[in-house]
């Protein structure tokens, strides 16, 4: 062996140290603590889903599609979420029609057109701060502007006011995610366009936007699902917390009249002391979560699939 008269050579020492089974309790404890934190987060998610499923699935299996086809009612066995689905859907249409074009437009300006000057920096900082404003403050804005100041056009406490408020709420999110997607498009793509004589708008329309489309789409889906789950602003804009009947109204009447959305129905049901309504609350949560989680999953899959390294 390499030992000379019982003495270790340097090579032996190094070899021994490299192969030594190092048992370090503190490292193990640290890693275990990290795993514990992660598992705890996941356990909360599972508990939440299990709790909702336990109380809600029964109602859904008993009532079937009837639950999503009937309207609000003070009697638990006859109450459904139809009006909430209609309300949420119509407000999402407002978000899609207003927040998406405006958000993408603003992002295109900031990333493609703006020069680095004072005004651009102000707009940029302003948008970042807007994204951090609590949603309930947007509700106050909606109450002051859309319900009171513009009440004549929006019908006051109506789906129009709610939809506009939600659109403004998600606008900064759409701008930020779209700007990120645009920034990820390498400048060589733009330079190629300019090189063959295209104007800036032609480059943006035919090259930059198509390349950034998956990223923009992911951001907009996430913004939409955020808007779908928002409750507080709608309470301020005047979503009904009791019940109302909606018969054969025209679309315009529906847009300007009383309204609820899925989350506001959950809020009003959760406040009922009746245990029947507790089960209904869970059932409504399941309906909401299915829609939102499907949208989020679609966004995440889309992102992972089209994530491109340039």
């Amino acid at each position, binding site marked *: 062996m390499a030992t000379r008269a019982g003495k270790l050579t340097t090579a032996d020492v190094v070899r021994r140290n490299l192969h030594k089974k190092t048992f370090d309790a503190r*490292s193990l404890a640290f*890693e275990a603590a*990290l795993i514990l*934190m*992660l598992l*705890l*987060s*996941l356990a*909360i*998610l599972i508990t*939440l889903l299990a*709790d909702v499923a336990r109380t809600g699935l029964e109602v859904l299996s008993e009532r079937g599609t009837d639950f999503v086809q009937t309207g609000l009612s003070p009697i638990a066995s006859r109450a459904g979420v139809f009006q909430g689905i209609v309300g949420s859907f119509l407000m999402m249409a407002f978000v899609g029609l207003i927040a998406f074009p405006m958000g993408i*437009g*603003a992002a*295109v*300006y900031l990333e493609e*057109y*703006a020069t680095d000057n004072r005004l651009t920096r*102000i707009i940029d900082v*302003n948008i*970042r*701060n*807007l994204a*951090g*404003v*609590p*949603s*309930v*403050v947007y*509700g*106050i*804005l909606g109450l*002051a*502007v859309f319900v009171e100041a513009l009440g004549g056009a929006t019908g006051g406490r109506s789906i129009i006011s709610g939809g506009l408020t939600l659109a*403004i709420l998600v606008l*900064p999110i759409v*701008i930020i995610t779209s700007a990120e997607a645009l920034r990820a498009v390498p400048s060589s793509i733009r330079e190629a366009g300019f090189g063959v*004589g295209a*104007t*800036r708008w032609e480059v943006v329309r035919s090259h930059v936007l198509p390349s950034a489309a998956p990223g923009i789409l992911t951001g907009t889906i*996430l913004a939409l699902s955020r808007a779908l*789950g*928002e*409750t*507080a602003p709608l*309470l*301020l804009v005047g979503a009904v*917390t009791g019940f109302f009947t909606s018969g054969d109204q025209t679309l315009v009447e529906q847009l300007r009249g009383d309204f609820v959305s899925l*989350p506001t129905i*959950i*809020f009003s049901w959760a*406040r009922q002391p009746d245990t029947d309504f507790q089960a209904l609350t*869970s059932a409504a*949560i399941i309906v*909401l979560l299915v829609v*939102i*989680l499907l949208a*989020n*999953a679609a966004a*995440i899959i889309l992102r992972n699939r089209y994530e491109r390294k340039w």
Partner: protein
Amino acid sequence: MAQAERPPSGLSLTDLAGSPARRRKESLVARAFFGIAAVSIVISLLIVVSLIGKAFTFLGQVDLASLWSEGWFPRRSLFDVRTVVAGTLVVTLIAMLVATPLGLGAAIYLSEYAKPRLRRTLKPILEILAGIPSIVLGVFALNFLNPEVVDRFLCGDASFFNLGGAGLGVGVLVTPLVASIAEDSMRAVPMSLREGAFGLGARKRSTTLNVVFPAAISGIVAALIVGASRAIGETMVVALAGGATGGALFSIDHCQQGQTMTGAIAALAIGGDQVKGSVAAVNSLFFVGLLLFLMTLALNIAGGRFVRRVRQKY
């Protein structure tokens, strides 16, 4: 021939400028995009104007002594600011006590320890948790956290609505946000720093804690600040689980019912029709809203400043 009149190069600047129609369209499009981007400034101004105007109307309508009384009871014209601010701070503190270890722990594990495959499965699950709307967590806090966690483990005899459950609920809501921002900033630390530490014989734990963590500190602090700002502004969890009935006595006891700024706004919004007698009660909503807006704005600006000051460029 036209060519003969041209300068020797054969081209002039006007030839290179492109067709006037295209240039006109181009500047029109540029101005339209600028107009859209400027709308964000209009929105900010609208927020500030709509808050400030009525907040001052409110201050003119009420006895200023009622802003420093024994509780928050808008219907009895008691608008104790301390009550709602204290309630908000209690909820935020509990939320951050939950979100900081859970969020940072998950972030460190995902960024430094998890194998790529595990990370690819776990990260989307965290993102799903982030996508759960606050109303759902509010119901969960009311029906599960309040009775099963707060009442059973944390307090002997908690009230049905309590700030503790609301704080835990908000903490769960904020955890994925903290985790995601912190994880991004730790993954942005270049591999060469870790390799340098390993090369010197450092263990994984010391590399993580002494090299990666300090290098990513700006993002980690930003994550916590953004999380706290989100917790302060969170409404539905508090409105359902913390103090659903609107009024509350001054309390910083997590076992008892309380009221936060956001909860007070929501309660005023749904009870708005019943307080017809008191215009001040409705206008107090704008006053509290202004307070909330200024607090979150200060936190967000502080977070942004901190990131810019401490961030290292690699």
